[in-house]
Every structure is written in C-alpha cells, then in structure tokens.
C-alpha cells in the first residue's frame, strides 16, 4: 500500500511529540520553526515513505536535514577551530580549587546535584550549535559517533573534535552558570 497525502496528518501527529523534543534539544528556541520546516518537507515528499514502520527513521532524517541546513546558515567559520585554552579546561579541578562547600566530602557530586533539568537546558542553550548538536546526539540520545557523523554530513574526526571541545565548553558553562545564579553559596545549597 502506497502512502499519500491523505494519510499524512495521522502519521505526522504520531511523530510530532518526539520530533519536537529532539528539535528542542538540538536547536533550543528554534525548535518550533525546525519542526514546521520538517513537516512541510515531509508532506511534499510523502510518496517517498514506503511503510508506516519506516516513519520514525524517515522523519528523523528530514528533521536532521532541516537542523543541518539551519546550522550551516547560522554557523560562521564552521570548520575553524578557535585557538583558545578550552581543550585544557577541567571542571573537576575548578571545583576542587574553588571548593565552594568546604564542609562537604562530595563536593563534585554536590555541584552536579545543584542543577535541575531547566538549569541544564539553559546551560546547553548557551553553547554554539556546532558543539551542542553532537553533544546532545551522543550523550542524551545515545547515538554512536559514526551515525552522528553521517547525520551531520561531517567526517568522524571532525565530529570527535566538536565533541571534545563541546564537553569542555559544557563544563565551563556549568561553572559560569552556577556562579552567575548564586548556586555556589552555602545558603542556596541548603534550600
């Protein structure tokens, strides 16, 4: 049975919740626009979808293409790696050196526990898309680096480099966010 435009709404409605969640993780406040683009492209190409079972993978490919297009449009100097000291940043050392809660024996774990989910998303939203996207796909969606390279149309070594720098940017932004939001004060911790 070939699927056609009359089947589209029913098929798409089943995919929209997870498409939005993935787009939100990958593109932050652009998620609605990306999903809308994805729906329009999917509708125009619905004849390419052979079976209902293939719908999740098919929609994911279209969504990733939309993310990639936007990412290319938005990114400046996509292939350039800035020369800075981020590769050597260590949140572990930063916490140990600053020792925000001297009476705690588990200061590193306490630091992570001071973030709720909303805080984590705000931190992720601060990252450049070229770092946030591989980080989300690998560490939150559990997708392997070979597959991520394919999805992003980039060589694996480039993805590994983005991942490495992205992890370090994420570590640094966690610390900066905690400082900016008064999360390191003893009082804030006990609340």
């Amino acid at each position: 049975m070939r699927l056609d435009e009359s089947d589209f709404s029913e098929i798409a409605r089943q995919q929209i919740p997870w498409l939005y969640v993935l787009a939100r993780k990958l593109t932050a406040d652009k998620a609605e626009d990306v999903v809308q683009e994805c729906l329009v492209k999917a509708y125009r190409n619905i004849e390419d979808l052979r079976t209902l079972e293939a719908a999740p993978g098919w929609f994911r490919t279209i969504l990733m293409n939309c993310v990639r297009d936007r990412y290319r449009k938005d990114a400046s100097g996509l292939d350039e790696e800035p020369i800075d000291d981020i590769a050597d940043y260590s949140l572990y050392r930063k916490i140990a050196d600053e020792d925000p809660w001297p009476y705690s024996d588990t200061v590193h774990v306490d630091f992570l526990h001071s973030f709720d989910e909303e805080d984590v998303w705000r931190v992720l939203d601060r990252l450049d898309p070229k770092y946030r996207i591989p980080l989300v796909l690998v560490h939150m969606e559990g997708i392997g680096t070979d597959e991520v390279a394919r999805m992003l149309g980039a060589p694996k070594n480039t993805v590994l480099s983005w991942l490495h720098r992205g992890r370090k940017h994420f570590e640094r932004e966690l610390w900066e966010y905690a400082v900016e939001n008064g999360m390191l004060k003893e009082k804030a911790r006990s609340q």
Partner: protein
Amino acid sequence: MISCDQAVRQLWGYVEQELESPDRERLEDHLDLCRRCCGEMEFAEELAAFMARQSTVDLPNVVASKFDRVLEDLQAGGER
C-alpha cells in the same frame, strides 16, 4: 608517561570508549599512578551519566496546537 594535562584532554574520549591504541594504554598507565586524574575520570563518568539523565522535555500544549494548525493547512493545500 603522559602529563596530567594530556590525560585530562583524553578522559572523556576514554569514558566514551572513543580512545584508541596506543593512546588508550598510555592513559591507563597514567591512571595507574595518578590519583588526581582517577578523580577526574570518575567525575567525567558522573558528568556523562548526568547528561544522559536530562531527557524529559515535553511538547507544550500550545506548541502541539500550533502543529495541528500546520497539519490542517498542509492538508488544505495552504503550504503547497
């Protein structure tokens, strides 16, 4: 033996099993002797697990309604 700075640069890759020979063995040799870098590695593992737990974003009702309208427009031929 590699330095602590070199080891720290490779820890995430090690935790995610992306690090290949001979870098992997060099890092393991370093970890055998360096207590601080072992702490770094445990923290990298903790951080990876912390990220994996952040997965419960929901589709807000207002956004779901917006997508319903997009689907209606598409079916009506509005976006073609």
